[in-house]
């Protein structure tokens, strides 16, 4: 009896073992990571509006499109990666929940103009504005309260009717009326937009007490970020939704009329495909003079970064917006036909500065000494070398400030004046000394300093699956260990994380990472406001910045003074003062520099992508954002 039991037991146990092993194998494959991974989140949203991730509207997408589109001719299709995660919800330029990255990505650093177009195209390489729907440069009036924009007479909607000034005025009016993101972001600065005649638009600024424009920079920003929709179509949408703002915003807009070179061809939960509109008005000599080369733009929807990276290496993605660790190995070691805009580190144009915010609602972090000690103890070189695998300039090369590494922003402040405040990190000794002097010491000898009799124990957080951010937080935590402050990392899922940090008050995370504004016409003012303005304190669903709830009256004055200041010397003085305050008070500290969009190309099928020094001045913006879309007119299929 016993023998048999033993046998059966042995069998059971071995089966258990086998099953265990099998389940081990299985669970390793589908990584349970949110798809967002290291996708650079849509940064530079100069908006007060929340970016909610709502579930798709219940009506399924209309099943009108043929399914025979799965076979696209490879040499006529440009494949994208790293932009679209999850199925598209809609095509409505008035809506906020389209989850349609390829068609609708409005941003100050250059809106994506594949399907819908803006008046101008922003180029973050030189800050220039190239007319798109507009004709020629915009004109300020003498006291800078109004901008006049001419509409290109060649511009046509996809139904063949011309784009008029009325369309611009009506789109803006509707956006403000229904209170969507675009409307809310601009209504504080733009009073009215009127169509003087069918081809002339006048944009009037909101005036401050002194009768000046409240913020002229935001008007320029508007020109490059605001999508224009057709008045007739908007009225149709309003009519079918009985003028209900929420219903209008949630309208899927399958019948939308657009002005861009591509329209919807096919979309499901596997991929999104755009087809070229061969009647696109841009082939007019006053604009591009020809059609963009690829007949189709396609974006397959991948489960996660790893899947997307594998597809990119296999040549199934041509243009990829994704952080790939040690990307240089793809061409140096594996010999793949993959390139980035620059052939050397940092491989891209870094315009963003992912930053660790201190939660100033926490008493211990109200101590400047603690904030400074942690900030100077962090090994930034390790973050840049190991977390970013060298894809960022170091803080020796670009000393810290509130400006991004571009020449245009670096020249806005006096480097010498703040030199004594700019730390490069890994200064354990200095940090320890600072804490000792502040009287924050370890009295009970457990290796952890106390504050008000309690061990200082902080939580450093960032979303799970955002690989380089997670690694950065680990390095911050390691710094804490060296200076007697316990820092533990926490990686919640992205939704939970973002809901927490954008709330009016939270005590869950003490040090947490967020991106900052990238390049745009309002920078570096926008970033100053983003990092330090107290106007967002106490607001729930605050996506506009200063997540640590810092407050400083002088900073508020500067935020008000800078936009209307036209004297360059004075401006430099203000910016220098702002940097000085930022580096003295340390409400947050940047951990790295980063491109707004990662831009890597695989030239298995297409070639002729923008590269540094090619003289074309096309920014590496995934061939779609702002003036980056010019790349679509230069690429050619490989021979």
């Amino acid at each position: 009896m016993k023998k048999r039991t033993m046998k059966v037991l042995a069998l059971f146990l071995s089966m258990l073992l086998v099953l265990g092993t099998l389940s081990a194998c299985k669970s390793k494959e589908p990584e349970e990571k949110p798809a967002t991974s290291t996708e650079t989140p849509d940064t530079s949203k100069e908006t007060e509006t929340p970016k909610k991730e709502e579930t798709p509207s219940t009506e399924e997408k209309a099943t009108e499109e043929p399914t025979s589109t799965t076979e696209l001719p490879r040499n006529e299709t440009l494949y994208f990666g790293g932009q679209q995660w999850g199925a598209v919800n809609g095509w409505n330029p008035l809506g906020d929940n389209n989850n349609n990255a390829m068609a609708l990505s409005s941003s100050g650093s250059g809106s994506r103009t594949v399907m819908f177009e803006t008046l101008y195209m922003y180029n973050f390489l030189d800050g220039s504005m190239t007319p798109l729907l507009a004709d020629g440069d915009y004109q300020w009036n003498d006291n800078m309260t109004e901008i006049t924009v001419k509409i290109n007479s060649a511009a046509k909607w996809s139904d063949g009717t011309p784009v008029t000034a009325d369309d611009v005025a009506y789109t803006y009016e509707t956006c403000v009326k229904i209170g969507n993101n675009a409307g809310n972001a601009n209504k504080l600065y733009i009073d009215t937009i009127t169509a003087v005649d069918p081809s002339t638009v006048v944009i009037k600024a909101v005036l401050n007490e002194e009768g000046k424009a409240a913020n002229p920079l935001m008007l320029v920003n508007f020109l490059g970020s605001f999508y224009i929709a057709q008045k007739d179509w908007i009225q149709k949408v309003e009519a079918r939704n009985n003028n209900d703002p929420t219903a209008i915003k949630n309208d899927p807009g399958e019948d939308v009329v657009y002005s861009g070179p591509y329209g919807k061809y096919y979309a499901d939960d596997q991929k999104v495909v755009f087809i070229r509109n061969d009647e696109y008005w841009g082939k007019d000599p006053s604009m591009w003079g020809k059609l963009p080369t690829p007949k189709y733009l396609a974006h397959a929807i991948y489960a996660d970064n790893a899947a997307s990276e594998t597809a990119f290496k296999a040549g199934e993605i041509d243009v990829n917006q994704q952080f790939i660790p040690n990307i240089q190995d793809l061409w140096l070691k594996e010999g793949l036909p993959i390139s980035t805009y620059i052939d050397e580190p940092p491989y891209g144009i870094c315009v963003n500065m992912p930053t660790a915010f201190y939660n100033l609602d926490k008493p211990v972090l109200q101590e400047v000494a603690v904030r400074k000690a942690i900030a100077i103890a962090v090994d930034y070189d390790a973050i840049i070398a190991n977390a970013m695998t060298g894809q960022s300039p170091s803080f020796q090369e670009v000393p810290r400030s509130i400006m991004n590494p571009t020449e245009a922003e670096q020249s806005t402040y006096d480097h010498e004046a703040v030199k004594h405040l700019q730390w490069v990190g890994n200064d354990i000794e200095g940090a320890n000394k600072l804490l000792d002097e502040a009287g924050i010491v370890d009295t009970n000898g457990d290796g952890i300093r106390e504050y008000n009799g309690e061990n200082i124990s902080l939580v450093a957080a960032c979303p799970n699956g955002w690989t380089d951010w997670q690694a950065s937080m680990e390095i911050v935590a390691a710094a804490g260990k060296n200076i007697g402050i316990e820092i533990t990392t926490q990686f919640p899922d992205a939704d939970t994380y973002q809901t927490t940090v954008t709330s009016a008050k939270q005590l869950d995370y003490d040090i947490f990472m967020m991106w900052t504004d990238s390049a745009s016409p309002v920078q570096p003012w926008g970033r100053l406001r983003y990092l330090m303005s107290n106007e967002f304190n106490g607001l729930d669903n605050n996506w506009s910045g200063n997540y640590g709830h810092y407050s400083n009256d002088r900073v508020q004055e500067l935020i008000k003074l800078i936009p209307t200041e036209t004297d360059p010397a004075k401006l430099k003085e203000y910016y220098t003062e702002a940097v000085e305050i930022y580096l003295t008070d340390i409400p947050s500290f940047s951990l790295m520099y980063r491109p707004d969009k990662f831009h890597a190309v695989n030239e298995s099928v297409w070639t002729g992508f923008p590269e540094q020094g090619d003289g074309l001045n096309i920014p590496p913006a995934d061939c779609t954002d702002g003036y980056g879309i010019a790349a679509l007119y230069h690429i050619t299929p490989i021979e």
Partner: protein
Amino acid sequence: MKNTIRQIFHSPKFVAGFSIFVIILIILFVYPLINPGDPLQMIGLSSFSKPGTYVSVYDAIDTEKAIMKLPNADEKRLQNKLSDEDRIAMKEWLLATGTPEEEIDITDTDHLLKLWKDKYDPSIKPKGMTMAKRNYYKRLNTNLEKALDANEVVIATRNTEDGTLDETKTVKDTEYVNTKDVVNSIYLPLGTDNFGRDVLKELVSAAKTSLRIGLIAGSIATLIGLTFGLLAGYLGGFIDDFIMFITNLFTVIPGFILLILISYGIGQEQRGATTVAIVIGVTSWTWTARSVRSQVISLRNRDHVNLSKLSGHSLARIILTDILPYIASYVVMALILQISTAILAEAQLSMIGLGPKTTEVPTLGLMMNWSMLYSAHTHGYWWAYFPVLLIIALISFSLNLMNTGLDQVFNPTLRD
């Protein structure tokens, strides 16, 4: 007892498993003595450095030199910069820019290099050539220039006052240093990981943690399983039904799912290595309970047990002296298997990001997790994940081998 142990050590399977296990243990405890220091220290400022010895270039300059004239040094140097594929690629470029084919001889190095020097111009964009390819030529050209330009490299220091460069030393291509003489060097048998940490040091520390997790989890699981199994089997009746009800409940819910839920539930800040071990322990006791129970059922009506009962011995005494010894060998075997499965469970949990906190202790699963996150498997950084797999495999292999050996000794049907 002595006899049993002797018997056990006569089983070749057990001895093999035991030796592997002991060797691993010795390495785990001896290596940190030879190479002390924090296993989580980020020494490297570049991710995934290859295994090998790294000598300080800075110190090498000041190290005593020996002049050696190796016959094929130049050849090797050139081969390093100019492989056969490079030669073919150079030919392609020359052809694409209009050099007639008969002029190009890729076997004649001097001729090829001269031709290249004359003709190559980075600003030319041959038609149809990709950016990736052009960048490749630029790099090749820089490499060749470096290889050919000078046979002497000048070391200079920057004058702190006026910023000019002062020549301090020259390095000839025939100078060599003994790597032992270089003041600073580090031997990284398994390279570094994505954080620039020494993989071997980390691995040793991680294996220790994983073993500890296995031991704690295994003991807890066995203890719970044993207690429940003994009580249910011996007492029978309502208590048996009740315990079996709970056990079945735990059995039908897949243990790993339960593990994920609990780990997620307690949150990362609470998840130290010990907590994870406890969680694994309390979710994996069911099979032990079931099998102990069935064994006890077969034992409880034996004559010696009945005799004890008649003698009025207490429940605890009967269980401990009359039943437990009979299943002790089985319990030891179950414990070994539990340890092995617990180590695997930790690895799985950490792989999906639910393991212990990263900064405190390294564990095998965490090492796998980070190397996955940094695409070590697709980029071919084998040293970051393969040794981890190997050590997991070895530990569970040795434990299972020991188990089979024990089975052979204690299971009469298997006895030789």
